[in-house]
Structure formats: C-alpha cells, structure tokens
C-alpha cells in the first residue's frame, strides 16, 4: 500500500493551482469565501476561463474535447478548485447532459450541443423533479404529446437550480401514459425561450433564490430535440444519475469547512477562554475530524479503484451518505460555536459591495444561514434513504 501521490500527480496539482492563482480574480474568490451571492456573470467568468483552457469538460473523453484525466487527476482538480475558493462549476450542461449526449445523442445533437457546452454558450438546467415526483421520480406527470413534427409539452418541474439563468433545460417527460411508469418516459431538450415556458422563483428557508419552478403550458418542442429513443428516457436518466462522480463525498469542501470551524472555535469565547479549549466541544471537533480523515481514505480508495477501471457502484452511494453527514456536522458545530452570535440575519450582507459594520464578527453572518442551506444535501441527488435502498438492492442479495 502506498498513500502518497506520485510525482506526476503532484506536478499536476501545482499546474492546476498555478493556473487558478493566475486566472481567478481576487474579488471573486473573496465573494465565495464570504458566501456572497454570485451573479450569472460570476459563474460564467470562471467557466469561460476553464473553457479557454480546455478544462471545462474535464471528465469527457478526449475525442469530444475532454481532458483525458484519470480519476486521481480529477480528484486533485476538484480539490484545488475548492481550495482556491472558486465558484462551483455549474454541472447541468457539462457534467450531466454532456455524458448523456455522448452516449445516447444523435450525430446532429452531438455536433450542435457538445461544442456549445464546451464553449459555455448555453446555460443548461435540469428538469427532473416535479411536485409529485421526488424520490419516486418515475411517477412524474409532465406530458409530451406527439403532434407530428413536434411534441406539445404540459406540466411543471420544480427545484430547478439556477433555472432563472437557463437558456435550455433537459427534461424527463411522459410520452406514453398507458404503460408502467418507467417505460413511458422520454428525454427531451427544451428551449427556455419557447412560448409557454414560465420560471417562478422558490425562496428557500435561508431567504435565498437559487431554485425555481418551471411551468410548461402548450410548449411546442421540435422532434429533433428528443434524445435517443422515445419511451427510453428512464435508461438515460439512470445513466446520468449513476455517472461517475469521484467528488460525491465532497471531501475538499468538508476539509475547508473543518478548518473554518477550527478558526471560529478559536475565536469564540466561553468563560473567557477559547471555545476550542472546552473539552466537550473540542471532542466533537476531534471526532468529526477523525470521521473526515477516514472518509478521505475511503474516497481515495474508490477513486484509485476507478483509475483501474473498476466502476464505483455502491461506494458512490455510501460516500454520498457519509459525505453529507460529515458536511452537515461541520455546519452544525459552526452554528453551535457561535452561540448567540448566530442569531442576526442581515440578507443585504451577502450582496456584493456591502460595506457596513457587521453585527458580531464578520465570519458569523453566513453560518446559521449556511447550516439551514446545507440540509438540502442529504435530500437532493437521491436522498440518503434512497441511497440506502440502492445499496441494499445492489449488494445484499435479499
């Protein structure tokens, strides 16, 4: 066994780090560090830079404009992005739709959409969840009726992340209502500017607008926007959901959150002494760090197996569960560390250019808000309960 990165890997890490240092504007990393609201332009700036460098489609095959990186290199890349406080890469086009088109798209679709994703020309959104179809995704109700040269789409999608910026949305729709749910689903690409598409914001419990409802009323969608075969969308949807996700545990994010937690608990005081000196509080921090340490190795074991061509199966689900629990624990301890300093809620603090005096320390502002926001991670992308069902079904032979 050897847990060291190779010289080649370390050089690659330096290359990524140097590039981020040169191209990521200071104001932008500051915004990310302070949890300020990012504009569409903020995301696009970073993604355009990646696109110019040829690193945007970092896990596509080389022949489609990908990087050809192995799993370890992808892991390093993800780590460095987080360490540099860069905005996240909006995943819907490049990470989700791209691989589906490469696998199942027509030549025409590949030739048209893939370069546009590579050049960051379209902002994509994901149209999966519906009000009545969350964990039970196959029970979705949005219909696409065949009208000869086009489909007529009616229904509603929800939880559409950053859908208010989107140019295009890929949707799961019902094309056959008379078969069992999984068999009548198709995978459709819809232009958000089409007449009949309406986006309504959902304000989440932290007061932020990140997710939306997307309504479709008699929306005409050309037939050429169907991906693969009609009524086989469920296969493509599952392919997308199980697509190799080396970063699913979110190790870099939790590591940076843990460092932040240590900083905050050194500055927060209890009886005139730093909170980190309190044996009970520091014990919670220590056990969290131990869990994270173990998870980092578990994640690397999975990543390393992936470089040898072993597709991560249930490991992805296990890492997703543990990753979300660890991350949520960091936000819980951060919230506890603040004591009453967690109470003030100044939404304007998260606007760019806000320069008034904060109430309490500057770092306190986003912490409670972030705690509530992070409840989402054990719900989305297949809730932790669904992940457990997947593992049980795949590996217990029950």
């Amino acid at each position: 066994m050897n847990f060291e990165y190779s010289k080649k890997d370390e050089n690659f890490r330096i290359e990524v780090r140097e590039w981020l240092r040169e191209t990521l504007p200071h104001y932008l990393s500051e915004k990310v560090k302070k949890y300020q609201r990012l504009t569409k332009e903020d995301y696009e700036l970073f993604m355009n830079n990646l696109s110019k460098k040829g690193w945007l489609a970092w896990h596509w095959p080389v022949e489609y404009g990908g990087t050809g990186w192995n799993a370890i290199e992808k892991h390093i890349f993800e780590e460095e992005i987080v360490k540099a406080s860069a905005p996240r890469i909006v995943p819907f086009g490049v990470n989700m739709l791209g691989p589906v088109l490469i696998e199942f798209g027509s030549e025409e679709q590949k030739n048209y959409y893939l370069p546009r994703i590579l050049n960051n020309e379209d902002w994509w959104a994901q149209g999966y969840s519906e009000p009545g179809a969350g964990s039970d995704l196959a029970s979705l109700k949005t219909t696409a009726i065949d009208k000869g040269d086009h489909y007529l789409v009616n229904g509603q999608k929800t939880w559409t992340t950053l859908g208010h910026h989107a140019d295009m949305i890929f949707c799961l729709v019902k094309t056959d209502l008379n078969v069992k749910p999984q068999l009548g689903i198709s995978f459709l690409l819809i232009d958000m500017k089409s007449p009949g598409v309406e986006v309504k914001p959902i304000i989440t419990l932290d007061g932020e607008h990140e997710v939306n409802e997307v309504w479709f009323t008699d929306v005409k969608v050309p037939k050429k926007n169907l991906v693969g075969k009609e009524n086989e969308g469920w296969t493509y949807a599952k392919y997308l959901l199980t697509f190799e996700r080396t970063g699913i545990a979110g190790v870099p994010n939790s590591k940076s959150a843990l460092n932040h937690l240590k900083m905050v608990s050194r500055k927060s005081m209890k009886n005139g002494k730093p909170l980190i000196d309190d044996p009970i509080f520091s014990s919670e921090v220590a056990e969290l760090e131990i869990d994270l340490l173990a998870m980092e190795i578990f994640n690397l074991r999975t990543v390393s197996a992936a470089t040898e061509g072993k597709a991560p199966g249930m490991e992805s689900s296990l890492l997703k569960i543990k990753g979300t629990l660890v991350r949520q624990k960091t936000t819980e301890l951060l919230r506890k560390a603040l004591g009453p300093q967690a109470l003030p809620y100044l939404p304007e603090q998260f606007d760019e250019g806000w320069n008034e005096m904060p109430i309490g320390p500057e770092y306190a502002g986003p912490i409670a808000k972030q705690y509530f926001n992070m409840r989402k991670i054990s719900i989305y992308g297949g809730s932790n309960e669904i992940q457990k069902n997947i593992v049980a079904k795949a590996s217990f032979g029950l």
Partner: protein
Amino acid sequence: MDFSLSEERKMLQETVARFFENNYKDIKKRGEYLKMTDGFSREFWKESSNLGVISGLVSPAFGGLGGSGEDICIIFELIGKSLCIEPFLSSGLLSNTILSSLNNPKTDLINQIIEGKLLMSFAHMEMNNRYEDHFVETKAKLEKETWKLNGSKSFVINGDSADKVIISARIEGKVNDKNGIGLFLVDNNNINNRPYNTIDGYRSTEMSFENINGELLCKDDQALECVIKTNSAGALALSAEAVGIMQICFDLTLDYLKTRKQFGKSIGTFQSIQHRMVDMMLEIEQVRSAVMLASSTFELNSTTRDKNVSAAKNLVGRVGKLIAEESIQLHGGIAMTWEYSVAHYAKRLIMIDHLMGDADYHRDRFKLLSSI
C-alpha cells in the same frame, strides 16, 4: 497511490487465513482451547511458529519476516475473523516490540519467541492506571546493584503462562510523572499469579510481587517512548482485529436476515432493517479506511504514527459498539445464546474498546497530537 497489497503480503494473507480457518472451524473449538491449562492451545501456537505467523509480526532486522504496520494488520485482521485466542498480542507483538526497541535489542529472546519456545507478556496495566502510558505505581529500587521490584500488575493478558514478563515500574518521581519509569525483565516464577478468564474469552492474570529481582531494560525517556510505541502497536493490532470481527458480524447478520422468516417473509426484506445494515456497512468501510491509513503510516515519525493509530482506535471504539449491538439486535434472541458465534464476536468487539485505550482516550490523544 496504491491501495492494494503486494504479492508477498497477499501470500502471507492467504497462508495465514487458511491456517486459521482450519484450526478455528467453529466456535466450539475455541471453547475447548479456552478450557486448556493455559487458556489456549500450545499445539496451535507451535504450528503458528512453524508456519511463520509469529515471525510475520517481527522485522527481518531481528530475525522475523514482516513486522511492518501492514504485516501486523494483515495477521490481526485474520485473528479477528477466526476469534483466535492464542498469545499473538502478548508474546508475538507487545513483547517483541519492546525487545526490539531497546538500545541493545534482545534478539536472542525474540528468536525464542518466534520459534515458539518462549512465552512472554508485557505487564503495564495496574488496577488504577486506566490506559495511561506513564501512570505507574509499581516501584523499582536499586539495592547493591540489583533492581528490586515491589507492587502489582493487573489485566496481564496471557501473563499466567508467560515464562518471562516485562514489568513497568517507577524508579523515581510521583505516580503520574512522565519521567522516572523503567522497564524490567522478570522471571515469572517469582511472581504471584491469580489467573482468570476475561469476558471475551482470553486468559488474563493479576500479578503481585515483593522484592523480586528485575533486569533493567531501559528507563526514563527511552522507557516512556517504548511504552508509547508498544501501546500504539497494540492499539493498531486490536483495530485490525476489530475490522475482521466487524466483517464477520456483518456477514453472519446478513446471512441470518435471509433465512429468518417472520410475518411470512425473510426479515431482510424489511426496509427498516436494510437501512441499518447499510449504516453498518458504511461504518465498517470507514474503520477499514482509518486502519489502512494507520497501518501504512506506522513506520513514520511518532506523532503521525500515534495520531493515525488514535484516529483508528477511536473509530473502532465507536463503530465497534454499533456493530456489536446491531448484530445482536438484528439477530434477535438467538444472538443472546452462548452457543451461537455472533455473541462471542460481539463480546470481543466490545472488549477491544477496553484494551490499549478506549474511544475517549484515543480521541483525547488525537486532540493533543493534531493540536485541536
């Protein structure tokens, strides 16, 4: 980065696995060994020596065939899987670690242990020193160039059958001073032993002695570092043993869920039970990962070594409780019986947290070493 075992180690693993499987086929056999005079089978121990299992715990520099963190973990994980009660920890690992860490290593004794001719034990624990490396009440004084030891030692695993014993004793200072302890080699014939069985199936003993002769092996900083290193080696080995036990507990429970029928179907079809099995599986992978890290960094500087061992042993304590309790709970009544093996695995898993530092002890040590 490479998480697989080398070919040599795979061979070690296969050989030892087959050997243990053949000798510990079912839990009744273990019960028979435990009833023997020494609480284990001398015959099995001799065969272990012939096969090179004991030398797998010792570095080639001292006549062994292994001795690295990885070797220790391979062997102890298999010990866990078979619930083997031979003196691998006391003689094979702890005594050999001390004997090989001295300025003048006792290679002759090490070789006798490897050959299965000599049994030794490390008597460090006392009734009131809990898991501390430096808290020692037993006294040593120099009389006419001979060291005389006075006091008592507790929970000395396999101490009753040992030929020689290494005793930690205080030469000077207060009971919890870091400085002032020494390690002494003592002939077990001079010690009063009160042997007993532990709840998890090991043989242990309470030792008491008055003015007995001891040979000084090392003292002060060297003695303390020796105790710390030995206890870390023990904690690492027990962590690996726990991984083996957890895997067996999980496998036995899963098998049982498939065969046990209630309400007209196998109980493994119930979602509430499946989810708990996933929790167990996930936590076992976490422990396995922490033990891999600790084993592969065991030869590095003492801070890294002890920090990673403490992370692993802390996790073993926490997850061990989960696995032991859930294995019993998901089995139901059958796991409450002496006859069924899962009960014995669960007992050992829980009691591992009472040896070489529990979850709290290692959490606190982790805190110190990572400056939290």
